[in-house]
């Protein structure tokens, strides 16, 4: 363990959210997934990316929510938005036509190539745990220009083999990936409660690039189902700023729904 760990005046969830939000600094149109992505994208709009167009599968483009939406279909997303469309228009004209720069998704299980399972744990016909399923995630993973993932990591979520491929990531064969003809380049980053990852261009494999302050490499390795690639210049995630923490705690999640 790292004895020189700084005083963690923030939680693992808070640094995960803040580090994720900073990745949206150069993004225009962002598709917002269920759960943690909701707070990440709302934080980014209040910090690094005030012009960020929040896009929700419920049919909202350019949301300007006055409160943290309780779900991706909250009425606060409608009032003051750029456009409210039918779901068909949102998926067909905005997503499938290639207007979405980044989609922020969560996952129950992910593998080293960024394939995502949100459908089932165990056998499909006799599931141990029935999860929600795709929602829009399958077409989002295929049609958004890039996919960023936020999820807590552990041996049950970062697995060698996912139980069901709901949303495709990289195949492990970059030549195949390049020939797919999809808008999407697949997942480009994963942020967890322990560190941040990118996907290696040559292999499509998830690569650890930073550890959160106070987190040791061994702890990361103990919380995943494969031996990860680690960047040669493995760094440390920048800690949340006082302003990011204030926004998370006072404005976005005063009840601690996402940050507990």
């Amino acid at each position, binding site marked *: 363990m790292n004895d020189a760990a700084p005083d963690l005046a923030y939680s693992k969830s808070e640094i995960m959210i803040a580090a994720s939000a900073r990745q949206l600094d150069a993004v225009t149109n962002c598709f917002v997934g*269920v759960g943690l992505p909701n707070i990440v994208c709302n934080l980014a709009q209040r910090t690094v990316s005030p012009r960020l167009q929040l896009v929700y*599968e*419920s*049919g*909202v483009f350019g949301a300007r929510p006055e409160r943290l939406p*309780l*779900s*991706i*279909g*909250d*009425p606060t*997303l*409608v*009032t*003051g938005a750029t456009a*409210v*469309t*039918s*779901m*068909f228009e949102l*998926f*067909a004209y905005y*997503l*499938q036509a290639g207007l979405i720069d980044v989609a922020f998704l969560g996952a129950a299980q992910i593998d080293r190539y960024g394939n995502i399972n949100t*459908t089932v744990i165990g056998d*499909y016909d006799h*599931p*141990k*745990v*029935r*999860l*929600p*399923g*795709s*929602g*829009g*995630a*399958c*077409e989002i993973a*295929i*049609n958004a220009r890039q996919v960023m993932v936020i999820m807590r990591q552990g041996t049950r979520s970062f697995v060698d083999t996912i139980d*069901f*491929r*709901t*949303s*495709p990531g990289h*195949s492990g064969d970059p030549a195949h990936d390049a020939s*797919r*003809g*999809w808008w999407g380049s697949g997942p480009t980053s994963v942020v967890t409660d322990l560190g941040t990852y990118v996907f290696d261009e040559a292999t499509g494999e998830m690569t650890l690039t930073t550890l959160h302050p106070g987190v040791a490499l061994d702890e990361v390795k103990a919380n995943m189902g494969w031996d990860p690639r680690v960047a040669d210049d493995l760094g440390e995630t920048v800690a949340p700023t006082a302003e990011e923490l204030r926004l998370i705690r006072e404005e976005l999640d005063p009840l601690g729904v996402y940050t507990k």
Partner: protein
Amino acid sequence: MAESKVATMQDAVAALVHDGDTVAIEGFTHLICFAAGHEIIRQRRRDLTLCRLTPDVVYDQLIGAGVASKLVFSWLGNPGVGSLHAIRRRIEQADPAPLAIEEYSHFGMVCRYVAGASNLPFFPIRSYYESDIPTVNPNIRTMRSPYDDATEVYVVPPLRPDVAIVHAQRADASGDAQIWGLLGCQKEAAFAAERVIVVCEELVDESVMRADPNRTVIPGVIVDAVVEEPFACHPSFAQGYYDRDNAFYLKWDQIAREASTLDAWLDEWVYGLANHAEYVEKMGAAHWDGLRPEPAMSGEVDYGRYA
């Protein structure tokens, strides 16, 4: 004057929803007609195939009450909260009976309604590539474009429910319905269905519709019954009328964890009440006051008069 289709919820469900029907109560987080679901439970319909993108709490109630033998869906959860426990018990443990499922993605379900509404044999989409979803649902198939590029697309079959039940903020007596806020698939489901029940917060004069025709989502010509039922979407919301009752969504997570607590809830809030007006009264005026948003009026537009 146009024919009036105004009915009570009790009469509309009795006349238009039959055992064995394929039923879609749509509304994406918004305008989910819980009151119709409760009436279907109260009338003890059986063997329904229930369709919805997001089964939500209303389908957990319906399926927990035993009205359905099959579920067609694309996202199965209590939005912003977690799981739907009654449905999970049916799927994971066949408790108290198995539940057949047919599963798509959101865009796939949307396009099934679009195909059903537009009398098309299928609808092509760019989804499902390299996903396992088609391996568990043989109705999701591939085809090559008949044009030069020969692009491979996935196709989904039309969905034509026997009955669609859609909620709207306002409707007139002939069934013309206006919706604002999240539109979900209300229009597509209504046009795809054989029979349509429109439920509204307010029944208004036809002149209100005619003053703002762009807002009319469903025309009365496809509607069989119109029910005026304020607060019918609770605990979901009606934009501009009342907010989502998030405390109830959280509470349902506890209620539905055991069949016994779910049954007790149904006894108290569905079987024990004659209709939704009693539900509204039982909930109490202070509860509804707490869900009412501050106003945020739209701007007006000038349609012009061309006499």
